[in-house]
């Protein structure tokens, strides 16, 4: 029984392949310079699809991929009913709220907190759980500019070293969640393809333990 794994194009896919190789899945093809979007392992038991990180949960949710490897931040933003079955413990960072140390002057024209972020869904649910109303400003990158240019009061973003924040005069005010790469599995696939998926999931968990 063939299984399909969705990988997030880029650094996450490389790290994920390292782990999968240690699990005995060989796929040299992927490391060649190619524009193909679908790869097979040597034994042709696994099909890999290379997709944008934000699309990994979508492919897994619809069941066209049985499992996917992607950051916890992407899973939280997508908020889909997937089985999150392993923490792969790479790609570690934190989702944080950051702003000016003193809070600086709140803008007169807005009684609600303005949050600039790449993660509007996470921002809405995080503040909703605290009972705070916000105005969410969706940006695609360089989110730190939000408070600097007066577009927003704070930002919600992933923080690795914190250097970008420091260099732009911002500080972390709250930590929302710990992020790392996760193994997400489709609910129907786990049951229908249990014989193929469960041993692989177990092996992945073992390899992660060994690496730690």
């Amino acid at each position, binding site marked *: 029984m063939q299984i399909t794994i969705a990988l997030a194009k880029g650094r996450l896919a490389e790290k994920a392949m390292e782990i999968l190789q240690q699990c005995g899945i060989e796929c040299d093809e992927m490391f060649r310079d190619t524009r193909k979007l679908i790869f097979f392992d040597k034994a042709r038991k696994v099909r890999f699809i290379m997709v944008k990180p934000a699309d990994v949960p979508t492919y*897994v949710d*619809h*069941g066209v991929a049985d499992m996917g490897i992607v950051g916890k931040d992407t899973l939280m933003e997508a908020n889909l009913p997937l089985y*999150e079955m392993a923490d792969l413990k790479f790609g570690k960072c934190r989702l944080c709220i950051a702003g000016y140390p003193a809070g600086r002057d709140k803008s007169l024209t807005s009684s609600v907190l303005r949050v600039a972020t790449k993660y509007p869904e996470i921002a809405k649910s995080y503040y909703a759980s605290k009972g705070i109303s916000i105005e969410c400003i969706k940006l695609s990158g360089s989110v730190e500019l939000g408070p600097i240019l007066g577009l927003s009061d704070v930002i919600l973003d992933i923080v690795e070293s914190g250097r970008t924040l420091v260099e732009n005069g911002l500080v972390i005010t709250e930590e929302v969640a710990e992020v790392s790469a996760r193994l997400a599995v489709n609910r*129907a696939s*786990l049951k229908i393809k249990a014989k193929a998926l469960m041993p692989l999931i177990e092996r992945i968990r073992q390899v992660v333990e060994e690496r730690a």
Partner: protein
Amino acid sequence: MDTFKMQVPDGVEDCLPAECYIKKRMEAALRRRFVLSGYDEVETPTYEYLDVFQSGVGAYMQESMIKFVGPSGRILVLRPDLTVPIARLVATKFPAGGIKRLFYIQNSYAAAEPSIGKAGEFTQAGIELIGDASCAADAEVIALAVRALQTAGLRSFTIDIGQVAYFKALVSGLELDEAKTDALRRAVDSKNVVEIEAMTARLGITGRRKEQLLALPNLFGGAEVFDKALALSDEEGCRKAVENLKSVYSLLTDYGLAEYISIDFGMLHDIAYYSGIIFRGLTPEIGFPVVSGGRYDDLLSKFGSPAPATGFALGIKRVMIAMERQGLLSGYYATDAVVSCSDGCQGEAFAWAEAQRAEGRRVVLMPGLLEWELMQAKEQTGAKAAVYFEKDGMKTL
């Protein structure tokens, strides 16, 4: 503005002849199957008072319902599901109790963001068995779910069964409030061991109980799971839950359906009214359940007439999508004849067509065509015969 008159709103769609044919054929087959199994059909209103779906058992997320204000000023909703309306119907129209077997084939409505298999308007075919708390009732409903999927035309599928009472017994002694219980339920249901670990640390759950909660997501598989579940907890509530599921499983074996069944004690539906055995039907090529159901013994008491109940709903569109991807969808109207006539012979043609229809044949009337045009129409419709009426009489082309 003018472009809107050419469109339909997000989430709804037209059902064109090729799809409609298969959908109606499937519904007719399911209706027959439910009737033969002793269930009586009911219809409930398309919209009801918001109060029916609000607060307590059977409450729906407000943002997931389509609402509007009725003439009296009360808020109305397009029904988000059919189990709650049927619970209301039974509790208010048949308060005397007794066992009721009811089914429906009706549309439900959701305000969710639409995508494949997740529409704003969707047809559900389902049954409710009300007034029977026995394992036999659970098994009857699950067996009928299997039969319904077979009747619809699916070949390979699994019915995944769980028992929410096992989880409820594990958390009952922890004295968690509703929100924390729900967060823990969600972590278990999504098999998120990382999150369960973090939550137990935060909530101060340690020792044996923590181990049990962490083991719960992996408590799935075949009949071997029962022993694992018994070994994991000797709590009275857990033991009862396992015994209950075991009895249902054994009855399903008697039905000859064990091959379709898998067990998962870590499956906990997100609809809050489920109280015991729950299940979902899964099939390859589609990531969402095609059938969803279970026991909801506390729902009818919300409408003042407590009674145990169980049932399921089958998503017609989801089954069709799965079957299409599995290469199982085919069929269209079979036309027996196309009929035309020369000028002045309409009477004979009309009479002949009606006589054929009275015998159950599908006949398309196309008066005024030339013979070669009628032959073309025969090709296009795939009709079995082309019949032409002229002064000399009738001839088959």
